[in-house]
């Protein structure tokens, strides 16, 4: 997806259907101002997020990846986010070993009612990615 050159970066967000996607919706309905860098992919549960989704996105053009799910103990499927937590923590520790800044990846918990918190998460994460700059050089894009 194209970006507004010089202004936007590509950030991919994997949001759980039951909490974080609802939270993002709440933020939208409440007309909270948010940066427009994020592209949201709705997944059934944060447990659906294979760490390889994140790796694939980062290697293939994303400048940052955000994963959000229900708070621990609030998973719609009882335990999906507990598995996700272990996997994503492992990934977070692993990325920088391969030379990819782990600040480009963030995972957090946002419930459907937390519109304001969602706004905060997106704004802060986008700021963080903008501080790091683009991950990919232009010439590599068509490689």
């Amino acid at each position, binding site marked *: 997806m194209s970006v507004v050159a010089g202004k936007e970066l590509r950030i991919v967000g994997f949001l759980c259907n039951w909490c974080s996607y609802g939270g993002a919706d709440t933020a939208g309905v409440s007309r909270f101002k948010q940066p427009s860098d994020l592209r949201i992919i709705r997944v059934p549960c944060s447990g659906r997020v294979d760490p390889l989704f994140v790796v694939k996105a980062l290697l293939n053009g994303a400048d940052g990846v955000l994963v959000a799910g229900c708070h621990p103990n609030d998973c719609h499927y009882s335990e999906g986010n507990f*598995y996700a*937590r272990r*996997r994503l923590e*492992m990934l977070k520790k*692993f990325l920088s070993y391969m030379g990819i800044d782990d600040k480009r990846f963030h995972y957090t918990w946002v419930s459907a009612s937390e519109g304001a918190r969602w706004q905060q998460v997106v704004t802060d994460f986008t700021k963080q990615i903008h501080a790091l700059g683009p991950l990919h050089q232009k010439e590599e894009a068509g490689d």
Partner: protein
Amino acid sequence: MTQKKLKEVVQKVLPDVDMVIGYRQGFDPVHATPFFVTRPEQIDELIWNPLCVHNLASYIPSLTTNKKVAVIVKGCDSRAINQYLQENLINRENLVVIGIPCSGVVSVSKVLKAVDHQIIESVSCENHAVTVKTSQGEKKLSVSDVSPDKCKTCLYPTPLVYDHLVGDPITSDKEPESVYDEVRSFEEKSLEDRFQFWKTELDRCIRCYACRNACPMCICQDRCIAESRDPHWVTQKTNQTEKFMYHMIHALHLAGRCVECEECTRVCPMEIPVAKIKKKINMEMDQLFDYKAGLNAEDTPPMYTFKVDEETIEEHEL
């Protein structure tokens, strides 16, 4: 000595199983090769020396469903068997494990380098040393000088699981902490240097998939996502992105499962330190979940389970 005892054990075991998996002399004096013994007259061909480098446990998962198999394992290889048992990948009733306490193997590529890639006429193995004869003369090499990196930090020279043990158990004299020294020193480099290191190393990758094929824990090889078209995770392009992706797939699919046999590094034709990637994840598994793969058949791999309150995982702030 051990070789003679091994043959006696195999003699005893063979009538009750369909095959015994061991080693015999390969195509040249410095290579051993896996050997499937099915008839008593083949037993004499079996060998045991520091050239027996392969992890024979890798053959078991495809066999124990309908055959009774005996396998010869070193300490490092035995961890794969425990891991198979944890993941329910083998049928223990159809498996006889012949363990050999191992005082270290050689890295064939290091031996070849030591003799400058001359054609090797003969190799003789004594206690902790191999003597290699080429047309340029004889060279005596200490096993510890040409051993693969895994032997330098080996904590489990005696198999952790066995039905028959050939020889006396050996205890490791290595520091448990030293296993991940390599990872720690690598992490002291800057992010940019680390990226450049992997970029240079992985640039040589020809995606032959030897590391995957040799890996005892890569059990879904016939439907590996590195080769499947649906889902299409990696393309056939030979660029950096796809090479990184392939190795990340291999590493992440082994999270909490890698038994550190370092077969991946051994088989790599381009000499990429593939196992170094997995070692980092193993270190994380140890620190986060106090877990080392393949030590105990009753354990649960950390990615197959969870705790409601993870004491070791803290929330990340932005």
